[in-house]
C-alpha cells in the first residue's frame, strides 16, 4: 500500500547514517541498517509515512530545475534588500498583500510559501489553500507575488497527482 514511500525512506535513512558516521566496520553498518528499520517501523506505527511527509509523487525533474532558479532569486533579492538597508534614506515601503496561489497539493503550497519566506524581502504570514497573506518589504516586491514565475514553477513540480 505504501511500499514506495517506505522503501525510499529506508534508503534515505541508511544513506544518512553512512554519510554521518564515516566508519564502515561491519558492526557499525549493520547497526545503521537496524536503526533505519526500527525508525521505519516506528514511523509506520505513528502513521507518519504518507504523501505529505515523504512526497515521492513530486515531479523530480521540475524540482531539480527549481532549486538553482530559487538560489538565483534568493541572491538577487538578498542583494536588493542589502542595498536598501545600507542606503541612508532606508527606502522601504512595507506592505501586507493577499493573493491566490494556484497549487493544489499541500506539498506544493508549502514549497511556494517556504520559497516566499526564503527570498529576503517577503515573508508568508498566513497560508491556506487558495489564499496567501504575505508581508513584503517593498510595494514592488508585493506586486510581483501574484501569478509569479515562482507560482508557476511550484505548480509544475507538484506532479500529476492531486489530493
Amino acid at each position, binding site marked *: 500500500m505504501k511500499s514506495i514511500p517506505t522503501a525510499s525512506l529506508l534508503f534515505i535513512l541508511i544513506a544518512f547514517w553512512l*554519510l554521518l558516521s564515516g566508519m564502515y566496520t561491519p558492526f557499525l553498518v549493520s547497526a545503521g541498517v537496524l536503526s533505519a528499520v526500527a525508525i521505519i517501523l516506528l514511523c509506520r506505527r505513528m502513521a507518519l509515512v504518507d504523501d505529505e511527509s515523504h512526497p515521492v509523487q513530486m515531479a523530480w525533474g521540475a524540482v531539480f530545475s527549481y532549486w538553482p532558479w530559487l538560489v538565483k532569486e534568493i541572491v538577487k533579492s538578498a542583494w536588493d534588500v*542589502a542595498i536598501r*538597508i545600507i542606503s541612508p534614506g532606508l527606502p522601504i515601503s512595507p506592505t501586507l498583500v493577499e493573493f491566490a496561489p494556484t497549487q493544489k497539493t499541500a506539498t506544493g503550497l508549502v514549497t511556494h510559501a517556504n520559497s516566499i519566506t526564503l*527570498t529576503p524581502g517577503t*515573508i508568508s504570514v498566513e497560508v491556506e489553500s487558495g489564499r496567501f497573506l504575505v508581508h513584503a518589504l517593498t510595494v514592488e516586491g508585493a506586486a510581483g507575488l501574484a501569478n509569479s514565475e515562482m507560482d508557476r514553477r511550484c505548480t509544475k513540480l507538484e506532479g500529476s497527482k492531486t489530493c
Partner: protein
Amino acid sequence: MSTLITILSWACLTVGSLFCLVGAAGLLRMPDFYTRMHAASLIETAGAGFIILGLLLQTGFTLIAAKLLMIGLLILFAGPTASHALARAALLQGLKPITVPGGDQPSKP
C-alpha cells in the same frame, strides 16, 4: 588550481560575512518587528549560504562536504518554517505591521 579554489573560497566567506553584517545593521535600522524579520532572513539565507559555500570549497570532495550540505539543507528547510511561525504568531497576537498604502515614501527608523 588550488590557489584559485582558495581565492574563490575566501571570496565566498567574505561575501557571506558582509551579508551577515548588513543583516545585523538592518536589524537595528528597521522600524518594526516585521521589517526586522526581513533583515534577519538576509543573514539566514545569503549570509549562511555563502559561508557554507566557502567552507565547501575549502573541504573539497569529502564526507565533511556532505555534512555541510546537510546543514545547508536543514537551514533552507527549517529557517522559513520558523520565520513563518514567528510572523504568524505576531499577527495573531494583534501586532499591527507598519504599512505604506500604495506610496513609496521612505519610513524613518
